[in-house]
């Protein structure tokens, strides 16, 4: 008979650092830490030497200095006497603006193309496959340049709209498509609060009313659901919902005296209304159709991932096609579609940095372009630029993690 005993606990020997799995990982990590520290010290000493040789230092004081350049499309007040920091903020807002617009339209394009690729119609299917392949396989930079060229080289100059028999005319006398950008009517208020400024309070009021309508319709839907649970009959909610959406907002807009400022030819250019610059349109549209092609593939994969048995089972239970879609297919497809969709949004935000190729003043063009070249603060500018994009990415990733956790199949 044998007895099992613990292995003899010998004294610690140095060779155990390499051959004993209990200590080996510590050894390896220590070596890695030392190598890393040496590398960082080497890079830092190079940096310090180079900076000293060039007579530079690391300082962010330049952010408070006068920027000294103009930006043609700004969301907040800005002129060439503003600081570099304000120019950077203008750039950040412009980045967020084009990223938001492109996300919305790319989703629309992508969902349309993805659904149409599954259409029973052969011609439509092929056409959408063609769209997806063409746009996925050509660099987005080329698309941005192509659309920017259409904007600048094909659309007429404002002067073409002049005279009794002009070469070009405005669309329904409301919008003008020129090579300097697109001019559309802009709303403004004649009554209400804060008219001396830009009428910001009025807009807040309008948004508040819209949010109220949203809450109202949700309440109506919830009560309809409760009634259906209790009695099995679903009350009609369409008309009451439409009323909740439209009546309050129309009343408020009338009360505030909404007017439209229609663009018109003044001097050498159009004035009035809202001007959307050519670079913004080029970037917006190119990012939308390019990313739309990727989203189309995600949507198609998502819908195909719901097995046919699910649809058939729902139909066998007596659900109508619309409710099969909304209660059975979509919730399962969305679980597959949304995570890649969010990373496409992240890609749009990152690709919006290509604005610099067409001269749209986003953060890369202001902070990483003109400010960098004028101040020569390369390291500081690039670091701030990276920090901004990193924060945006981490926020979107965090949001995606929250979503994934909430949608995760509850498994035991």
């Amino acid at each position, binding site marked *: 008979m044998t007895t099992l005993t613990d292995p003899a606990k010998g004294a610690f020997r140095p060779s155990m650092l390499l051959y004993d799995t209990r200590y080996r990982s510590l050894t390896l990590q220590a070596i*890695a830490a030392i190598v890393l520290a040496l590398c960082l010290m080497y890079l830092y000493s190079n940096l310090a030497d180079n900076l000293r040789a060039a007579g530079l230092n690391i300082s962010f004081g330049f952010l408070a200095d006068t920027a000294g350049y103009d930006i043609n499309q700004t969301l907040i007040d800005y002129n060439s006497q503003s600081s570099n920091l304000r120019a950077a903020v203008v750039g950040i807002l412009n980045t967020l603006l084009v990223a938001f617009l492109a996300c919305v339209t790319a989703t629309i394009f992508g969902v349309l193309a993805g659904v149409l690729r599954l259409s029973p119609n052969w011609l439509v299917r092929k056409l959408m496959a063609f769209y997806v392949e063409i746009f996925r396989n050509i660099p987005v930079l080329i698309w941005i340049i192509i659309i920017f060229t259409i904007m600048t080289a094909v659309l007429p100059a404002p002067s073409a709209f002049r005279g009794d028999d002009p070469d070009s005319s405005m669309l329904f006398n409301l919008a003008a498509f020129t090579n300097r950008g697109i001019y559309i009517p802009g709303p403004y208020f004649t009554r209400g609060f804060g008219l001396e400024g830009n009428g910001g309070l009025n807009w807040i009021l309008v948004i508040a009313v819209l949010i109220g309508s949203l809450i109202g319709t949700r309440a109506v839907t919830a009560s309809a659901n409760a009634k259906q649970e209790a009695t099995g009959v679903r009350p009609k909610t369409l008309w009451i919902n439409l009323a909740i959406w439209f009546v309050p907002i129309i009343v408020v807009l009338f009360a505030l005296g909404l007017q439209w400022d229609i663009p018109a030819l003044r001097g050498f250019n159009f004035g009035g209304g809202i001007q959307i610059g050519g670079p913004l349109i080029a970037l917006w549209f190119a990012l939308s159709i390019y990313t739309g092609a990727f989203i189309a593939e995600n949507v198609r994969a998502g819908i195909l991932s719901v097995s046919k048995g699910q649809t058939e089972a729902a139909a066998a239970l007596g659900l109508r096609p619309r409710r099969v879609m909304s209660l059975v297919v979509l919730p399962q497809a969305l679980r597959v579609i949304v995570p890649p969709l969010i990373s496409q949004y992240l890609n749009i935000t990152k690709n919006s940095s290509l604005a610099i190729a067409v001269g749209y003043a986003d953060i890369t063009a202001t902070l990483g372009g003109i400010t960098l070249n004028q101040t020569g603060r390369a390291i500081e500018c690039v670091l701030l630029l990276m920090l901004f994009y990193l924060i945006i990415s981490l926020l979107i990733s965090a949001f995606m993690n929250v979503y994934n956790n909430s949608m995760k199949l509850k498994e035991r």
Partner: protein
Amino acid sequence: MSDTHAESIPFVRETTLPQAAPPTAERGVYKWGRENLFATPANALLTLVSIYVIYVVLSAILPWVLNGVWNAGSLSECREILAGTRGGCFAVLVDRWEQLFFGFKYPSDQLWRPTLTLVLFFFAVAPVLFFDLPRKLLAFTAVFPFLAYWLIWGGPILVPIVALVGVGAGYVVYSRLVAQSFAGGFFGGIAAAAVVWFLGGYLVDATTGPSSLLDAVPSRDLGGYMLNFMLGVTCVSLSVPIGIALALGRQSSMPLIKWLSVIFIEFIRGVPLITLLFVASVMLAYFFPPNSTVDLFLRVVIMITMFSSAYIAEVIRGGLAALPKGQYEAADSLGLDYAQSMRLIILPQALKISIPGIVNIAVGLFKDTTLVSVISMFDLVGMIRGPILASTDWNGVYWELLGFAALLFFVVCYGISQYSQWLERRLATDHR
């Protein structure tokens, strides 16, 4: 009985009737069209809209292409030839093809060098892409990078030879030692290569003479589509091994290694490539030793490689995570150590799963090489927007040039993605 029965049936057919053709509505083009194009009124409407869209696009493009001018010296000559009719001025492609493909500074009498490199590239990459080819061809693949370097950059032939001998020595040492321990083989190989390179460095310095067969071409003279191609191929091939290392590091049980990998990957994936290119063009030089000149091409290769290796690491991590846990446990129970189990059991399977993802990253990266035009390198897009469109002869020829660039990228990227789909079918070992 039989008689009465015979009388009640006046006629019995003894042969079967020949089959009648199905009704016209149920056969041929008519049936196909009804089912696929005009199944419902909404579908019919969609079909008509699609036909209209196709008509509009083709009627805009076809006359323009067919009526194109291929022989002219400048845009104004093109317009004279066209005499007011619509047509493309493709003469710019004929006139400037050298610049589009090779940049505007590569010596014109040396253009056979990059062309030959491209031809050899196809031979080198074939055994990597198609497993059925004899494995011995991989020897040429191993030699190709050094040959390509020498063909494109020229200069003393000793430099690539020393580099090749160093790698060869490292490989010999590695294959001797790897049977005992992977770490010994790995570091021994690196040490052997370093020794050869160090000694070879003296040899190269000692023999500076008119011994170079090919004239040296500096990196800044590279350009055009060649530059996109070189950046794409170099960075993808460099980033696969780094990506594998990062993916393994991210899975590691050692917290320091794991967190370093995570921070690197998430940082790189969080910033746009263009900021990394800014780093390459304005910032990276500060981190090299003073008075050293590292040319822009190399700096860009470093940054793009870092960029793509982070993405490839994530793809491979997906492959590692997709393997059933039993594979890891089986490797452990066989008594394999970490390096052996990874090399022999885990990575072959994980890489197989990751190949389509890696190819996707490669396509994306190849498209992203156009971004170097933003930091004033003259790749294909940079050539078009810079020297060609700015020249007095061709100022205003947008569509022909941009369309050509789009076509070049489409051909390569579509080709790679078709290859990827073929490979996916080929590697599918599960019978579904």
